[in-house]
């Protein structure tokens, strides 16, 4: 089918941040995840675990605890503030200082009326939740020592608070502590260290479960204030705890990377007397498990090793399907790399900076399988530090390599880039006022226009020229949707622009007439990648459930190929792939071919070939290689999978028709993590 020259790039030093906390919203089936750098991520568990929204972090903000109140999201952090987020504009809505020093924990009662926060100064503060804001109500009795964990009883009348060396039960009405339960400091060597109660959970039968820094999981009777049972699960800290909705099991996470499940089981089979029994132990992580959630059929865990692991509980699973196998999410589901195809340059986005690299050059040609001699090494042209405290949310480089744009939640900057003999960069002054921030940035193919997706699903069109920078038009979706736009695709001829938002809508605008053209029929899964074909102007979309659609913009209908795909269905192995497709490019050599990639493969899809059915071999490259030219034709199918390059962050096609793959091996990430808790292993 074809040979490709591949620039294999492994110098993008992307480093995800460790996971600090998480909270699962049962009703919306969304998981909110707080990272150490203050980034918040929202995963949609209904939609193939797609990373739906990302709220970029801020240097001054830390996220220590996250909490859903109905559809509203609150965090609290060591800066002492409680923050509510605007999930449509992906930015903080407001912050409120609790005036209690650093906040360690936040918990909402079952009724959704009050937030309780635990502060460094030993106070527990109650906030009333109002429709648009929260309001301080009162303090519970202040104690000595910080409050590290809180849990409401479901009645809303009592709160359990985990502190240093003790757990206190508070009566919410009076604000007084009713019980004080002392936690043992553990083994003799640790006697001088305080025992930190990292987590508490208040069950409806007045049982309190606590985990602490001496490796214990303890079950208390809060009605009497006595200890029921102790389970020693670790030699180091037990950092996280999550209780299942029906309160029949809970999981704890240790700093050794293990997750231990406990279940409330009858002592004898069929008996009435039940006890908490340690049942399963997993080791999904190498480092501290800082955040846990039990979501019915699976345990979600995250920690300092930055990956999010969804491990199914097989005893609760009836049918094996895509949704209940082990998932590990390492990389963001959006592209952090953009490529200037014409100039052979790559832009890497970090939270705090941008890097521009020029790719190297090779000498001569080679046979397939060869590694070519690198005549000219890649070159780091530029490292651009962002201004302000907000992290970079999106960035783009123009195809000619002459323009660079990035945005944070508070500002958007465009730069003019010249790299001939020496590199020079200049900020474009006097940007139009409408350009305050963007969720997504994109340049037109001829680099004359910048498209910026802004609030309320609006897309601003800016014309760029040497002299000035002019706002041409703002497209607004007819549907009135306010969901943020996360994908933009402009056609090569400069006539069409497609914008996909998190509400699964895809709007197509006519750039010549500056008018909305049409809306693609809404499909139930969020689009993860899209592109407009350079010659036919068909819009190709890939969704989170890995379905592929092709829509003819001109005819305003799905193409025949798209209908064929839907009729015949995609191969089972394709639908079971673990990570979403994050980028689409088209092969200029062959109009029938386009390329997709996810984290573990890239593939070329040839629309002229028959689709694979479930009976045929899906990963057939090795088989095809061994066949003769004629036989290949009969065995070939549309999906040409290449799994040679793993841990892909980006795959693009340069104008000289060579491929660029950007890899980030997990071992490289692991090597930059702090040392894990030392465990004795043989031969170490």
């Amino acid at each position, binding site marked *: 089918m074809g040979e490709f020259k591949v620039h294999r790039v492994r110098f993008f030093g992307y480093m995800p941040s460790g996971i600090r906390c998480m909270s699962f919203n049962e009703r919306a089936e969304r998981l909110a995840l707080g990272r150490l750098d203050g980034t918040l991520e929202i995963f949609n568990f209904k939609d193939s675990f797609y990373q739906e929204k990302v709220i970029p972090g801020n240097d001054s903000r830390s996220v220590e605890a996250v909490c859903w109140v109905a559809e509203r999201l609150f965090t609290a952090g060591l800066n002492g503030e409680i923050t509510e987020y605007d999930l449509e504009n992906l930015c903080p809505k407001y912050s409120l200082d609790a005036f209690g020093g650093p906040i360690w924990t936040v918990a909402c009662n079952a009724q959704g009326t009050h937030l309780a926060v635990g502060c460094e100064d030993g106070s527990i503060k109650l906030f009333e939740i109002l429709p648009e804001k929260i309001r301080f109500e009162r303090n519970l009795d202040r104690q000595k020592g910080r409050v590290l964990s809180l849990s409401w009883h479901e009645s809303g009348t009592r709160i359990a608070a985990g502190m240093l060396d003790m757990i206190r039960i508070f009566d919410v009405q009076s604000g007084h502590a009713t019980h004080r339960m002392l936690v043992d400091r553990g083994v003799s060597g640790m006697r001088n260290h305080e025992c930190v109660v990292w987590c508490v959970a208040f069950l409806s039968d007045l049982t309190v479960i606590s985990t602490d820094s001496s490796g214990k999981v303890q079950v208390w009777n809060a009605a009497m204030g006595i200890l029921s049972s102790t389970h020693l699960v670790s030699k180091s800290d037990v950092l996280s705890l999550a209780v299942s909705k029906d309160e029949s099991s809970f999981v704890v996470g240790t700093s050794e990377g293990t997750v231990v499940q406990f279940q409330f089981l009858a002592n004898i089979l069929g008996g009435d007397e039940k006890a908490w029994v340690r049942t399963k132990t997993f080791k999904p992580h190498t480092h501290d498990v800082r955040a846990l959630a039990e979501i019915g059929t699976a345990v979600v865990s995250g920690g300092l090793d930055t990956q999010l692991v969804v491990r199914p509980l097989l005893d609760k699973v009836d049918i094996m399907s895509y949704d209940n196998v082990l998932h590990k999410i390492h990389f963001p589901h959006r592209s952090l790399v953009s490529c200037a195809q014409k100039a052979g340059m790559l832009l890497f986005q970090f939270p705090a900076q941008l890097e521009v690299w020029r790719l190297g050059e090779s000498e001569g040609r080679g046979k397939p399988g060869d590694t*070519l001699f690198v005549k000219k090494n890649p070159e780091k042209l530029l490292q651009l530090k962002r201004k302000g405290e907000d992290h970079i949310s999106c960035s783009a480089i123009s195809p000619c390599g002459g323009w660079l744009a990035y945005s944070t939640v508070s500002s958007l900057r465009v730069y003019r880039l010249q790299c001939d003999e020496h590199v020079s960069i200049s900020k474009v002054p006097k940007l139009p006022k409408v350009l305050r921030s963007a969720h997504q940035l994109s340049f037109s193919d001829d680099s004359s226009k910048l498209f910026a997706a802004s609030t309320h699903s609006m897309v601003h069109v800016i014309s760029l020229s040497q002299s000035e920078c002019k706002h041409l038009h703002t497209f607004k979706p007819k549907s009135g949707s306010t969901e943020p736009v996360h994908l933009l695709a402009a056609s090569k001829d400069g006539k069409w622009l497609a914008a996909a938002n998190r509400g699964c809508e895809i709007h197509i605008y006519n750039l010549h007439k500056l008018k909305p053209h049409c809306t693609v029929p809404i499909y139930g899964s969020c689009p993860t990648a899209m592109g407009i074909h350079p010659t036919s102007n068909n819009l190709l979309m890939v969704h989170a459930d890995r379905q592929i659609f092709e829509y003819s913009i001109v005819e305003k209908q799905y193409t025949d190929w798209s209908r064929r795909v839907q009729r015949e269905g995609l191969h089972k192995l394709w639908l079971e792939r673990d990570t979403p497709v994050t980028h689409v490019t088209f092969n200029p050599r062959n109009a029938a071919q386009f390329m997709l990639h996810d984290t573990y493969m890239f593939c070329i899809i040839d629309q002229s070939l028959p689709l694979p059915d479930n009976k045929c071999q899906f990963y057939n490259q090795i088989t095809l290689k061994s066949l003769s030219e004629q036989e290949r034709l009969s065995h*070939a199918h549309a999906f040409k999978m290449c799994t040679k390059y793993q841990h892909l962050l980006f795959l693009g096609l340069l104008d000289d028709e060579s491929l660029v793959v950007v890899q980030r091996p997990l071992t490289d990430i692991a090597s930059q993590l702090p040392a894990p808790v030392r465990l004795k292993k043989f031969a170490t």
Partner: protein
Amino acid sequence: MAALFEGFTLCGVVSGSARAEAALLGVEAEREEDRVVVTDCGRSVTVYKVSDQKPLGSWHVRQGQSLTCPAVWSSRSGEYVAVTDSRVIRIWKDDDTTFEKTFKATVCADVARIHAAADSEPVVLFARGAVRMLDALLEAPQQPIEEVLSEEEVIRSVCRCAQCFYSCKEDCYLYLQRFNPNSLHKYKLETGESRARPLSLCATVRNQSIKLLCLYSSGCLYQSVLSMRGTIQDGVQLLPRTLLLRLPVEDGHLSSASVVSLDEGNLAMVGVPHPSASAGKEFLCIWNTNFQTLQAAKELTGRIYGQLWSYSGRLYVPHGKALTVIPYECERSSLATALGRLQQDRSDGEQLVTTVVSWNTLLHEDTIQHQKGARGVETRQSVRHRGNNVPLAPMLRKFTVVSFTAVPSLLLLLIIRYIFLSCVTRDVEMILSGTADPELQLVVGRLASQLVSRCQSDSAFYPHHTLAQLVHTRCVCHSLCPNLLMLALEKKDYSLAQLCLQHFPDIPEAVTCACLKAFLDDLQTENLEPDSVSFMEGMVAVCKRDGALENGFSPVLLEEDSCDVNAPTTRAKGKADWLVLDMPCPVGVKKAALLNEILQTAHTDSFLLPHLKDLTAQQVVLFLQYLQFLYLKYYQDISAQAPGLRSPTVTQIMDWVCSTLDAHFTVLVMLPEARDLLFQLHKFVRSQVRLICELGKIQGSLQDLHKLKQTEDADLYSIEVIELF
């Protein structure tokens, strides 16, 4: 494997000799596993606690009345139900003392049977085929009962789990009654050309289908599978059947026999003759239908009645004047358990001969084979005529008639009883050379068992050579001829015993242990199989040579005392000489060769243990010493396991060490002379365990090497060329 355990008598059977057909009306399960309700032919119903062999309650009907169907226990209502004088249904509870005061209801037709399946209401089957639920019947006892069977049909047998019964006039029919919805199906039972009568029915329900086993008077056991679900069209259908077993029946017809299914593959039978026992003895047999092998058999004294019941792991069989309870055990049968755990590896091509008789293939072909075989035998008669002077002529005439209906070798078998030793050898050779392959097994089996039975009756008769020859054909196995090995032991013919041990795949553990005992006890033997002896000679030679180490190599001592496993005789030399692991072989070379054969027999630990306990302490010590000797030898010199020769493997040795220690541990601990032995064994094993630990660690660390993929150059940048197809 199935096994029958020692039985015990539950109660006497009072039936007079006049009543031919049955000893008891029935044995039914009670509420607990351990209890049964026994209804005798006369007037009493008794509840027994089986493990205590003790009656818990007994009820008698008044003089003049009689019980006409077995009493059952209804688990729904907690009551007993019986029928007296064919039409009176009686229901009573535990605390009722006499029948007179209990509830009774008279119905207007004769009752044949009452069924009480677990968790369901009892069902009444009338003699003319109608079926009613007991409750429904008692609501209106005088309700009219329809007649299902025609006048000349009689219910002959009824099975418990599904309501099926068959009736008989000229032809036999099977009626299958289902409930919910009520329906009655009629099937015709094939009788075949021989006019064989069905004798016993047994039904089991599995996976929504009814499996019917039907034993015919011709000795054939057929299986029919009926679906419980599928709709079946009306009218009489021919019952589809498959032949499971064809049992040898001496005189053509069985009179009374009964079959009970024990589990999926095993069934118990009574009234069918044991294939290798002499006539006139009655046996309770467990047959495996999957492998068509006899799994266990037990001789029953007295006459049998063709009645057999099975409840919760026990078989109830009336015979003579008693009802005997025989516990049984059926392990799930698989090829592995059928053949034992350590089937020796027969890799040589020439040894690949099946030794399990396939009755099916053999007997289906007999009509053709008969004539062929008979002709062959007749030509040989002249030879035999010259060889002996017994007046055979009248007998031979009889045989020419018989030989068309019976297996041809019968001819010879009967002759064996009359001729002399020298002739036997020659005749057997003739037969072996002249018989076709599929028939050979049957013929050889019969020959062997007849020879053995003659040997047993006539102590002067012992054709060693012939027996050895028969064993060499590999057509004899232990179940075909169970007494052969014991006979060889009795006659101290250890070379034959060795042959049997080598060639029989199915020696029971009891016999293995008997052999072991005999071999350990005494031995003056002559001709053993040369290979096995030369193997042992080689091993003993190794042990003598061992003193001098090759090229001065001296392994470094791991731990001074842990490896000190000198035999008691060499202990005096002191610790410095730790490497002298050898101990003199505690038994002679020939005895060792025989013991090796024992070690290589197939066996199952759990069955072996009870028999191993029969060994005396001295025997155990000797055996352990020998095992230790072997173990040390193998440890010392891997090449001791010569590839070509028959030799026990290390695993087999270890298994036997474990079993022996397991069986005799307390004895060995008490025994002063075993002390040294045990200490040495322990030390050596401990050192080995330590070695294994270290090996495990090395393995663990080297294992990771596999995980290390050949990582491509960890360059940050490269330009490559790939090709996609």
